[in-house]
C-alpha cells in the first residue's frame, strides 16, 4: 500500500530551514492498522501530510498503491486524495454551515458521483457510524464524538483504501475516544488500511503496529502483541 524510501522534508521559512523529515523509510501493507507516536515536533504530521498527498517530499521516493505519487502534479494529487484516501482530523474540520449529510456528500460531489448514488452512500455511511437519525443536523448541533463520526463517514465516502487520522481522539473525552476507536477497528476488520497519529499509549496499544518517530526518522516499529481485541475501558 505504502512504500517510502529516503523521504526528506525541508521547510524553508525565512532564514532558517527546518528539516522535519530526515531520510525516512516506511512500508505499510494493505489491511494494516498502524499508529504513529513520537514527541511533539518530531515530524508526525509532516509525514501524515505527505502520505495523504497534501504535501510532497523534498526528496525521496513515495509509492502509494503502486503509483509513484511524489512526482504527481496538483490535480493528480487531488484525484488521489479524493479516491484513495480518507482524512480524519483532530478538530474534525467539518463545514460549519453544512449538515452532516452535506458534509459526507462533499467528497462524492468532487468525485462527480450522481445524486442517487450519493444519497444511497451517505445514508448508509451515516447509519453505519450511528447517526442515521442526525443527518440534517449542523455540526454545532452535534457533540465532539458525533462530529468525529461524521468526519469518519465523510472519510469513507469514496470508499478509500487508506484512512489517515491525525490524533482523531485528541479532542474527545475517553468514552467518545473509545467509541471512535471501536469504529476504526470495525473498519480495519472489513479490510481498510488505517494509519493513525496518537499521543495516547492506550490508543496506540489498540492498533496492530506502532511506529515511533523521533527527530524526523523512525526509531522503532513494534508489532502489536495480540491485544487488539481488548475490551472498552
Amino acid at each position: 500500500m505504502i512504500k517510502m524510501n529516503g523521504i526528506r522534508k525541508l521547510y524553508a521559512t525565512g532564514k532558517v530551514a527546518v528539516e522535519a523529515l530526515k531520510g525516512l523509510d516506511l512500508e505499510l501493507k494493505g489491511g494494516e492498522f498502524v499508529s504513529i507516536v513520537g514527541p511533539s515536533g518530531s515530524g508526525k504530521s509532516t509525514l501524515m501530510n505527505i502520505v495523504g498527498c497534501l504535501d510532497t517530499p523534498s526528496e525521496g521516493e513515495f509509492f502509494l498503491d503502486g503509483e509513484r505519487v511524489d512526482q504527481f502534479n496538483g490535480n493528480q494529487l487531488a484525484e488521489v486524495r479524493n479516491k484513495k484516501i480518507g482524512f480524519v482530523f483532530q478538530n474534525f474540520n467539518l463545514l460549519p454551515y453544512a449538515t452532516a449529510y452535506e458534509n459526507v456528500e462533499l467528497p462524492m460531489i468532487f468525485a462527480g458521483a450522481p445524486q442517487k448514488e450519493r444519497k444511497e452512500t451517505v445514508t448508509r455511511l451515516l447509519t453505519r457510524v450511528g447517526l442515521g437519525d442526525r443527518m440534517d443536523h449542523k455540526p454545532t448541533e452535534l457533540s465532539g464524538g458525533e462530529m468525529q463520526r461524521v468526519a469518519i463517514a465523510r472519510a469513507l465516502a469514496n470508499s478509500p483504501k487508506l484512512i489517515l487520522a491525525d490524533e482523531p481522539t485528541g479532542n474527545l473525552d475517553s468514552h467518545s475516544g473509545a467509541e471512535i476507536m471501536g469504529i476504526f477497528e470495525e473498519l480495519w476488520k472489513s479490510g481498510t488500511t488505517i494509519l493513525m497519529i496518537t499521543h495516547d499509549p492506550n490508543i496506540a496499544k489498540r492498533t496492530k503496529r506502532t511506529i515511533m518517530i523521533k527527530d524526523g526518522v523512525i526509531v522503532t516499529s513494534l508489532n502489536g502483541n495480540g491485544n487488539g481485541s481488548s475490551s472498552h475501558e
Partner: protein
Amino acid sequence: MINSLLFVRLFWRDLRANKKRMTLTLIAVLWGTLSIVLLLAFAEGLKAQFAENSKGLGEGILIIWGGQTTIPYEGLGKGRRIRFYPEDLQEIQRQIPEVEKVGADYFNWGTSISYGKKTISGRTNGLFPSFETMRAHYPMPGGRFINDLDMSKRRRVAFLGDRMATDLFGVEDPIGKVITIDNMPFTVIGVQVKKQQMGSYSGPDNNKVSIPATTHSAIWGNLRYNNLVIKPRDVNQAEFVKSRIYEVVGKRQKFDPKDKAALSIWDVIEGQKMMDKIMLGLQVFFGVMGFFSLSIAGVGVANIMYAAIKERTVEIGVKMALGAKKRQIMGQFILEAVLICGIGGLFGILVAQGVCGFFERVDLNNEALTWLGKPTISMTIGLVTVTILAFIGLVAGFFPARRAASVNPVESLRYE
C-alpha cells in the same frame, strides 16, 4: 456544474453573515447596471426619436435647387443661374430609370388664407401627388392627399398642414369646407397627420396650404419650380442618381456636368446615414461609460471575494484534503461573484425598467421630450448589459478564485 446547489446555499450563508458588506456591494452593482442600462436606453430613445423626427421631412430623398455655373460651357460664360422647368423633371424621369419618384415645389409666401371670418397670411405651395409618401404628407383619416386627377384637371383643392387647419378651423372638421386663398375658393380635401419634422426648407409642413402644382402655376403663372424632390429606388444608388441628374439637366440647360455649383443638392439620405453613425457612436460611448461605472462595482465584488477567501481558508483546505480539484475550488468563488453581479444586475435592470416606465407615462408633448425621445430598453441593450455583467462577474471572481486555489492545504489545516 453538478454541485452548484451546495455552492448557492453557501452563497446565501455568506450573504446573511456579511449583510452590510454584501448589501453595499449589491448596491454598487445595481448602481452600475442602472447607469449602463439607462445610458443605453436614453441613447436608444434619442435614436428612435431622431429617426422619427427625420421621417417628417421624408426618407431617402434628394432635394435639389438650381445654382450658378462656375465653368464656361459650349460658348456660354460662367455665372449663369440655373432654374428648373417642368421639362427638367420630365427628362429626369424619362432618362434615369434608377429614379423612383419625382416631384417639385412652387412657393407663394404671402397668400391670404381665409375661412369664415378668420384670415391668416401664410404659405401656399404647389406640389405633386408624389409628396404624399416622398415628403410624408400623410392625410388624417377622413381626408386624402392631392392626386393625379387633381393635377391634370387643375382642381382647386387644398390640403392643410395640421397647424394651419387648427388655426383656421379650431375644432371644426375642415374636410369638404371651402376656404379662400387670395379670394379664390378651394375645397379642403385633407389635413396632414401630426408629425415631428427635424429638417425643413422654407418652413415646416404643418403650417402651410398645399394645392396641386398645376393649379398653382395656372393661378400665379410661375413656370419655374422652386426646387425638385427626387427619390432614388435604392438609397445606395443615390450617388449615381446625383451624377446622372447633373448630366441630364446639364445637357438640357447647357452646363458642364462636372460643375457642382450649377445645382445644389440636399442629400437627405446621406444626412440620415450620418445621423445613424453619430447615434451608433453615441451608444458605443454611453456603453463604454456604463462599462466603466460597472467595473468599479466589479472591484467591489472582487474585494468582497478576497475577504471571503481569507475567512474561509480552513474550509478551502478541508475541501482540498477531500480531493477538490483546482477548478472546483475556483468554480465556487467565480460562481459566487457571478451570482452577486447577477442579483445586483437584475435589480439594476428592474429599477431601470421602472425609470423607463415612468417616462413612458409622461406626455410626449413636453417640448424637451419631443427631441429627446423616450428611454427604451431594447433586447440588444439587455443582451449587452447581461454580457458585460457576466464578464465583470467572471473577472471579479477569477482573480480571488485563483488565490483560493493557491491556498496551501497543509498551512490552512495546521491545528493551532
